[in-house]
């Protein structure tokens, strides 16, 4: 259709749906990472590699969304939140999926037979991180009601409750990590390279929960700092 005049351009690019989409990709990547650990436990290393590639794909999809938001978020837009805060928030949220990707890569570095006791601890840690990311996704889902209510006080309070929960879960992740480190560094029977690699896994898994907590904090700064 060619023959028309319109002023729809006044409605600018809205970054909020893509932001939610980006957070959903983070959650999906973590789900794949859990599956990858499961495959590792079964010593199904071809699946481990396949899952690494799948996580890579999600990560590059998330990168595209990030780039799109950065490109289209021009200074001529009036947004209900500070543009700079929003970009900073996006940057930290992107680290969630980046860290998932790192761990996914590290699972393919070395083929090991991991003892059930240690693997169980990894499962506990992964489940806790999943809990953290699920909570994170719930927080992000509040964008729509926040926008619809024009950042009504009650809606803000509801969203902020998630931030506290995320921070609490992140702390619990830290404690599980301490337990895992202690086990790993006291496994004299293990090959030092095994210990070293698993210790890297623990650290980077911690980064996932850590990024989620930091992104939640940026979310809070962005919403409360309007």
């Amino acid at each position, binding site marked *: 259709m060619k023959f028309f005049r319109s*002023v729809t351009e006044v409605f600018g690019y*809205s970054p909020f749906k893509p932001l939610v989409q980006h957070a959903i990709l983070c959650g999906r990547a973590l789900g794949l990472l859990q599956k990858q650990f499961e495959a590792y436990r079964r010593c199904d290393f071809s699946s481990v590699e396949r899952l690494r590639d799948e996580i890579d794909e999600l990560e590059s999809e998330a990168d595209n969304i990030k780039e799109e938001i950065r490109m289209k978020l021009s200074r001529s837009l009036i947004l209900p939140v500070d543009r700079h805060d929003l970009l900073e928030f996006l940057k930290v949220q992107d680290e969630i999926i980046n860290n998932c990707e790192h761990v996914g890569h590290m699972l393919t570095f070395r083929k090991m037979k991991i003892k059930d006791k240690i693997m169980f601890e990894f499962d506990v840690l992964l489940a806790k991180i999943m809990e953290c990311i699920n909570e994170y996704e719930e927080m992000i889902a509040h964008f729509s009601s926040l926008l619809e209510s*024009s950042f009504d006080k*009650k809606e803000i309070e509801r969203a902020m409750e998630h931030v506290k929960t995320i921070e609490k879960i992140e702390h619990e992740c830290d404690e599980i990590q301490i337990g895992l480190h202690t086990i790993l560094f006291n496994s004299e029977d293990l090959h030092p390279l095994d210990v070293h690699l698993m210790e890297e896994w623990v650290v980077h898994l911690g980064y996932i929960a850590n990024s989620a907590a930091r992104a939640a904090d940026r979310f809070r700064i962005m919403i409360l700092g309007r």
Partner: protein
Amino acid sequence: MDPTIIFALIVSFYVAWNIGANDAANSIATSYGSRALTLRQLVILCAILEFLGASLFGKNVVKTIAKGIVPIEILEPHLVVYGMIAALLSAGVWITIATYMHLPISTTHSIVGAVLGFGIAAASQGHLKVEMIKWSEIFGIMLSWIISPIVGAILAFSVFLLIRYILFSKFGSKKVEGVFRYLQVFTACYVAFAHGSNDVANAVAPLAPIFGYSAAGYYEIPREILIFGGIGIAVGVATWGYRVIKMVGERITELTYTRGFSAEFATATTVLSASALGLPISTTHTLVGSVIGVGLAGGLASINLRVVYKIILSWFLTLPVAMFLSIGLYSIMVVFL
């Protein structure tokens, strides 16, 4: 009937059609964007209320454009007829080009520029003194072009802020939106009526002198031309405007009932006040102002201010283009007819 008059009628009807197809459609599309009404309901409602606004309330603005810019009563009647046909044709040509190029121009600015062009041409040919052109009125009109989007913005800002801080915080946004869904039917009617009352003049004001207005002993605007323009706009809405409503409405789904209400209410109030004062203003530009007002009140996810530069650019483009086209056409007609 004189063939020049038939020609004038055709051009006028076309301009009215274009106004209905684009501007009427744009101003009502917010109601479709929020799905308060179906497309069919909206088109019927819009066509009827545009017609009513035009035929019942369009007189004052017609008066301003017909004789508030150029003192037609002191010119020879045949020159006035040429001048008005030249103005109408110039506005029609420019509006057509702008529509193809998707420029957010105003039909109001086009016709005002074109009529002014005729006045300047008449003055340059010695039929009129330059100072006889009603400059103070023209500056008043131009001032109203700057003020009207600002008034729309302030009104919309206030209305939405009231909704937000009184209704949202008391009843919750979901409940309030539900009620405003029905209020949007009212604002859709309101904005269509207001638009008809102001913009019909852009198409039919030049017909008024052609049909004897302001000639000796004929000082009333002939009602027939308002009805004629109203029909043109209604036909524009019904034959092409529905596509524009659909397209625009689909792009602005984020405009919820309360936001749509605020923007339309502010626009309609501003435009109808201007009609009462006889000021020809741009409904579309007022609507843009109102939407920005809602955005500034924290009602929208994203507002693109670049459109403001585009609109300002279109002001600077429309006036001279319409004016020079009109000067050229009028001169040709005076020389050859």
